[in-house]
């Protein structure tokens, strides 16, 4: 699999899907993201790595304007999706978020049944014409989220009654079900066991065929396995950004080097 993804890396078109220039984020007085410039390519998996609290989630949330919901957060800079400024006044964040989906760091299933959790996105976006189609979408999404076998018998049970890892997979399935063009995943495998992790990684690889995926991870191995591009954040700065292979084998910045050669988790 590792080899395979290496191979495919060169195949992806190099279209730039999202372009971020001089990005700054402030939480009140704290300057959480400083001067970050990143290009996210289409049909590519981009990994964000960096120590905890360095601003990965914050930056990720900028990409689909989820920071709008935090009253103290202030975002500056240019963020473009397909060349269009997503912070433009004319842009509807709702439409943006339909295109740029997100899986959150803390699993947050709705207090609804498992089925309704997954069907929520397709319903609001009108992706299914009828119940049968919706059932199909839900099943596909749960399969892709590697959860189908565990929950197929209790689709009506509340999503909140699942184990931590199951909840996380449910949230992945929920995000996948809306078929976003860009999928932002904040530590999607943190609560997953190796087997489930492998399934999610397979999913990511599959998604890359048509979409672009951004993934925050603490596992260097995971970044190396699934991503083609890697961005290393440190204290709110983007220290290094480039081909994953290059970053892991030949980092330019000493901070990157010391981070990835530190003890490996």
């Amino acid at each position, binding site marked *: 699999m590792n080899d395979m993804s290496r191979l495919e890396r060169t195949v992806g078109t190099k279209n730039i899907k999202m372009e971020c220039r001089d990005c700054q984020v402030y939480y009140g007085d704290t300057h959480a993201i400083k001067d970050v410039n990143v290009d996210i390519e289409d049909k590519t998996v981009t990994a964000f790595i960096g120590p905890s609290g360095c601003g990965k989630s914050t930056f990720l949330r900028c990409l*689909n304007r*989820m920071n709008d*919901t935090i009253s103290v957060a202030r975002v500056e800079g240019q963020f473009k999706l397909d060349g269009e400024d997503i912070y433009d006044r004319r842009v509807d*964040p*709702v*439409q*943006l*978020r*339909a*295109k740029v*989906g*997100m*899986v*959150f760091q*803390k699993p*947050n*299933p*709705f*207090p*609804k049944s498992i089925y309704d959790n997954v069907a*929520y*996105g397709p319903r*609001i*976006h009108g992706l299914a014409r009828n119940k049968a189609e919706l059932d199909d979408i839900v099943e596909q999404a749960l399969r892709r989220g590697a959860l189908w076998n565990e929950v197929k018998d209790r689709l009506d049970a*509340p999503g*909140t009654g699942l184990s931590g890892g199951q909840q996380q997979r449910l*949230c992945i399935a*929920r*995000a996948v079900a*809306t078929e*976003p063009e860009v999928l932002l995943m904040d530590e999607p495998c943190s609560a997953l066991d190796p087997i489930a992790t492998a399934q999610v990684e397979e999913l990511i690889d599959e998604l890359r065929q048509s979409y672009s995926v951004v993934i925050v991870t603490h596992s260097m191995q995971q970044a190396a396995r699934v991503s083609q591009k890697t961005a290393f954040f440190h204290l709110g700065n983007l220290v290094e950004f480039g081909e994953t292979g290059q970053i892991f084998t030949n980092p330019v910045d000493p901070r990157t080097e010391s981070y990835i050669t530190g003890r490996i988790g």
Partner: protein
Amino acid sequence: MSVSIITLIVLGIAVLGFFLGRQRALSLSASSGKRLHSLPGYYGQMVFLFAAVPALLLMTAWLFMQPILIEGRISANIPDSVIPEGGARSLVMADVRRIAGGLDALIADSGMTETALDQMRADETDVRSQLGNVGVALGSDVPVQVFEAAKEYRASSKTGSLLMSIAVLAVCGLFAAWSLLRISPDQRARNVSEGFVLALLVGASLVAILTTVGIVTSLLFETFHFFKLYPAREFFFSTVWNPQFRGGSELGILPLLWGTLYVSFIALLLAVPVGLMIAIYLAEYASKAMRSVAKPAIEVLAGIPTIVYGLFALITVGPFLRDWLAQPMGLGNSSSSVLTAGLVMGIMLIPFVSSLSDDIINAVPQSMRDGSFGLGATKSETIRQVILPAALPGVVGAVLLAASRAIGETMIVVMGAGAAAKLGLNPFEAMTTVTVKIVSQLTGDTEFASPETLVAFALGLTLFVFTLGLNVLALYIVRKYREQYE
């Protein structure tokens, strides 16, 4: 010693006990090297509770029992001869108490000595005018026996109070000392004090039960009387409500029940959507400043006396609906109507729905909203499909509360919907509700022991049972749709 002074002393001892207990726990743990089971404060609390609670309980019981015992003894000593014809022993005792109180005032004000008082005799001095001088008015002159009884009452009360002071303070001190001595590092002081708090909590929830028991018993007796005078079948199944002064009334509850449901339904039809939308807007859309102004402002609606709403219904809304809706549509020309009362009541109920729901909606964790926004949902979709379901149990509670208020409201219905009991569908007709009739039958001119008055109790009890049924149903529904987040 007066009750308040004793209370203060007991509380003083208890507070002292708190510090001593804490201190002792700390020093014991220091000297024995053992860790305390609980925080030192809990040992203090324990001593405090042991010192204060039994003593105050004793005092309450004593205060309750002492007059009963003393009066029992003294009233037995009063000869029948001084009890005026048609009067009652209890009235004479009231005089005794008043004179006894007057004697205290006499000593305090005019500096009379106790011995002088002992020698004072009702047939020699004009007790009435003397007491009148110190501001204690008596209805008539005082017979000798009554005066002696009053003196004895005063003496007994004094001894009683003295005994009580001693007993209460002794209990307080003993329990304080005992609990102090019992302190040891492994004593579970927190559990003791928490057990006590739990008992308080249980007690508090029992108040609700007791209230119900009280209501049912206070209604049951007279209801029973009513059904002895009036056939229950008629009451429950007759469709005519037409009380008469001279008996021969028709007292069917059905039109009233129908009116209650109709008016409440219209009120909720206005209050629930509007209230919910206000709650949603304030919790999800409004700026902080707007919310902090609008929410309390709308709460004022709940505090406007219902009579104001009633007048509003009578003078403004009723004629408006009649002139602009009812008459043009040919639905009648009554200015008081179910619709009038319902709409005005709906306005009153808005804050019940809006404020409570707003708090509940606000309490739904942000991560739920994030989850939905992250999927590309609009705010309204998020609210309708994620937040409201999550907040449902609380919102239902708010709606039930509003419905309850609607059922219990009187003034608005009287002025808005009129007093005519009618079974009909036309919302522009006058109707009335159970509550209105409870009030009017109970406060009317009719004699008390007639079915026309007693029907109020039967109405009250029936309404009670009826709403109980509705509530059981509501509980069942809420249970079924309850969703818990996280």
